[in-house]
């Protein structure tokens, strides 16, 4: 069926209204909403843990919660934010919604598998919720052995089971996306005509598919050791607890690229639109996405410089970690070059995208500090590391997620949100973020250890600044809940292409009809169409 008669005003949102039609929908656009609901829930749950942590850390003494509760708070914050928010975030919401639209397809390759992925995610989430309700886990999100396998008195098996299950959701989504990009592209849509968001989603999916099984094995072995005493990491048996770290980080380093690559894809779409310029260096942008994905598998040992691994291993991992920064840097340079001589406007999503470029760069540069073995010896397990990854994950990824939500909100909901409040929120997020996390670089450098419940007096000023910033950041995150909800009821109707953006998703109505397009599009040029007068640019993308 390539042409369907569309009734006036019927789209995927109003096509059917029952709860069953939402919970059993295989329409990728509805599945994206299911994920958006779950993700928002987990984001605020992980955020609540963060609020308690930052509140506690205002004073050096332990006056809000007991030590073991504090350990459970930061563990749950990490577990929830990494596996139940960041890893799925852009892929399952924006990716699910936009991927078929961007390639001119009716749906993903495997719509039923997509729905199953959400149910599996939900099942994993239930295990995590159970863990929280029963009292939590205190091993940190990293589950290091032998503490997790032998000594912890918390709900380790329950927690790792939740993560194990949600891993399947990741893998199935990854398979779906890869097959979709390979097999479902519209006529004329060659690989080098794909939007960078599609490239980013594709590379993310490759990492998801190859890295996640290793985590599954690592967690399975921890569970087996706890439940059945099968000691892989038990030193009494000659087992090596460090083996767990190798297996864990072999997944978890690529995982951070799973988390950031989709954000980079989003930023490319937004910056081109609001600078009114085609992307600078399209093939290098696509190539660097792939390079990040591949090199990301080779650097896991930089989490283990002080673990006792050999100095030669440290040397090699350090060198490779410097290498993996290069493609990321290329992207930053190319975004900057795209802005140059552009006609720039500062819509809310653009504010987020620009914020991403700045904050990601800072986070990335501090990654290089950490990649130097000599420096890392001093700052490993301090707040310097915490600041580094929050700059990338929050300053980068969450910012990109919000930017993407704003950019595509009119397409997804058919409504315009209130631009003034959106810009306010973006500004609050940006400045709140810096106040929260910049002091953490400083105190980490001065020696404040991470995961510490109590600390020396000299660090208090930094903690107070950080917690103050967290309050502003929280306000910035709560605002969108309000004005997005408001827009669903009272927002202006969105035209098909409110931002005059390029991309197939903007060629259909807002919101799209159930089958996305009234007629299968035929693609005749590259993904970015902002700069018709610049012949040089067009030639590169117009392959």
């Amino acid at each position, binding site marked *: 069926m390539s042409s369907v008669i569309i009734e006036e005003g019927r789209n995927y949102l109003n096509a059917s209204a029952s709860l069953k039609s939402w919970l059993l929908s295989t329409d990728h656009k509805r599945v994206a909403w299911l994920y958006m609901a779950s993700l928002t829930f987990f984001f605020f749950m992980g955020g609540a843990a963060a609020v308690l942590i930052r509140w506690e850390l205002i004073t050096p003494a332990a006056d809000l919660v007991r030590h073991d509760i504090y350990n459970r708070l930061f563990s749950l914050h990490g577990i929830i934010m990494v596996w139940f928010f960041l890893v799925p975030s852009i892929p399952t919401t924006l990716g699910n919604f936009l991927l078929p639209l961007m390639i001119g397809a009716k749906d993903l390759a495997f719509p039923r598998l997509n729905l199953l992925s959400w149910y599996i995610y939900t099942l994993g989430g239930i295990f995590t919720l159970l863990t929280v309700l029963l009292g939590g886990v205190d091993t940190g999100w990293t589950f290091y052995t032998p503490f997790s396998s032998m000594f912890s008195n918390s709900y380790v098996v329950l927690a790792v089971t939740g993560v194990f299950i949600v891993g399947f959701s990741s893998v199935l989504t990854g398979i779906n996306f890869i097959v979709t990009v390979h097999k479902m592209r519209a006529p004329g849509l060659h690989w080098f005509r794909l939007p960078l968001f599609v490239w980013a989603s594709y590379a993310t999916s490759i990492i998801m598919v190859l*890295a996640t099984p290793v985590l599954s094995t690592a967690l399975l*072995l921890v569970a087996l050791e706890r439940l*059945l005493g099968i000691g892989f990491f038990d030193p009494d048996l000659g087992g090596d607890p460090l083996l767990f770290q190798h297996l864990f980080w072999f997944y978890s380093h690529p995982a951070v690229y799973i988390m950031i690559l989709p954000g980079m894809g989003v930023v490319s779409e937004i910056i081109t639109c609001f600078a009114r310029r085609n992307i600078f260096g399209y093939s290098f942008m696509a190539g660097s996405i792939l390079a990040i994905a591949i090199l990301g598998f080779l650097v896991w040992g930089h989490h283990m410089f002080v673990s006792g691994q050999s100095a030669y291993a440290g040397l090699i991992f350090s060198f490779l970690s410097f290498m993996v920064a290069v493609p990321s840097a290329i992207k930053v340079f190319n975004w900057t070059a795209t802005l140059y001589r552009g006609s720039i406007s500062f819509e809310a999503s653009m504010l987020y995208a620009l914020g991403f470029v700045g904050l990601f760069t800072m986070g990335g540069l501090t990654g290089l500090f950490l990649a130097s073995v000599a420096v890392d010896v001093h700052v490993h397990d301090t707040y310097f590391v915490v600041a580094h990854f929050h700059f990338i994950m929050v300053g980068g990824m969450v910012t990109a997620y919000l930017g993407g939500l704003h950019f595509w909100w009119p397409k997804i909901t058919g409504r315009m949100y209130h631009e003034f409040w959106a810009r306010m929120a973006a500004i609050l997020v940006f400045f709140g973020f810096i106040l929260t996390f910049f002091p953490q670089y400083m105190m980490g450098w001065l020696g404040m250890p991470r995961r510490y419940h109590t600390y020396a007096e000299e660090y208090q000023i930094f903690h107070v600044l950080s917690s103050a910033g967290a309050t502003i950041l929280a306000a910035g995150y709560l605002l969108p809940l309000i004005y997005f909800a408001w827009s669903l009821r009272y927002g202006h109707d969105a035209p098909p292409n409110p931002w005059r953006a390029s991309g197939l998703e903007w060629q259909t109505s807002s919101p799209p009809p159930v089958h996305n397009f009234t007629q299968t599009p035929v693609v005749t040029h590259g993904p970015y169409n902002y700069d018709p007068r610049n012949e040089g640019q067009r030639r590169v993308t117009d392959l």
Partner: protein
Amino acid sequence: MSPTSSDSTARQALREQFVHLEQQREADTLGMWIFLATEVLLFGALLACYTVYRLAFAAAFEAASAHMHLWLGTLNTVLLMTSSLTMALGVLAARARARGYILLMLVLTIGLGTAFLGIKFYEWYLEYSERLVPLPGLEFTFEGVNPEHAQLFFNLYFTMTGLHALHLLVGIMIVLVMLILTWRRYNPLLLEYKVEIAGLYWHLVDVIWMFLFPLFYLVNPRG
């Protein structure tokens, strides 16, 4: 077959998101290949553990391997390899639309796979009675070099053969589904490639065993 009935067979076979059947077949097949890649990584992580410990405790691993039931393991290897042959023949039969042969080959495949599992369970029982199972509540006794390191060998053995058996069980169920579909005269345009996809999974389970067999049984074959 008249043109109109094969058209409608093709139309019924085509899922809504696809434009033509060839695209659907390619997508389903690619999906299975990628899934197989994830399985390689899953077992690969365990193989990495095995490698680390074998390099560290070579003598203990040799001694432990001598306790494996080599003939049962060899028999199992022959059975599983033969089942891969029957599966491959089943795929050829599906392409030739030879329903009788498909049924025969799939039944043989299931039979051989089930026999493998039976022998595996028997082996585990033997190991249990030889007190080589390192579970709580069970005595683990090992004479000779370093029983702790030997215990690592057996931890790996039971975990990896256990995980493999689980995958084989899933494989048997998948082939059983193919058998039922063939019996009920399922759309032959679909059956043709779905049997192939089931075959891909089956062959992977076989390949994994081809790694497990030498790593556990042949460390010290003259032992």
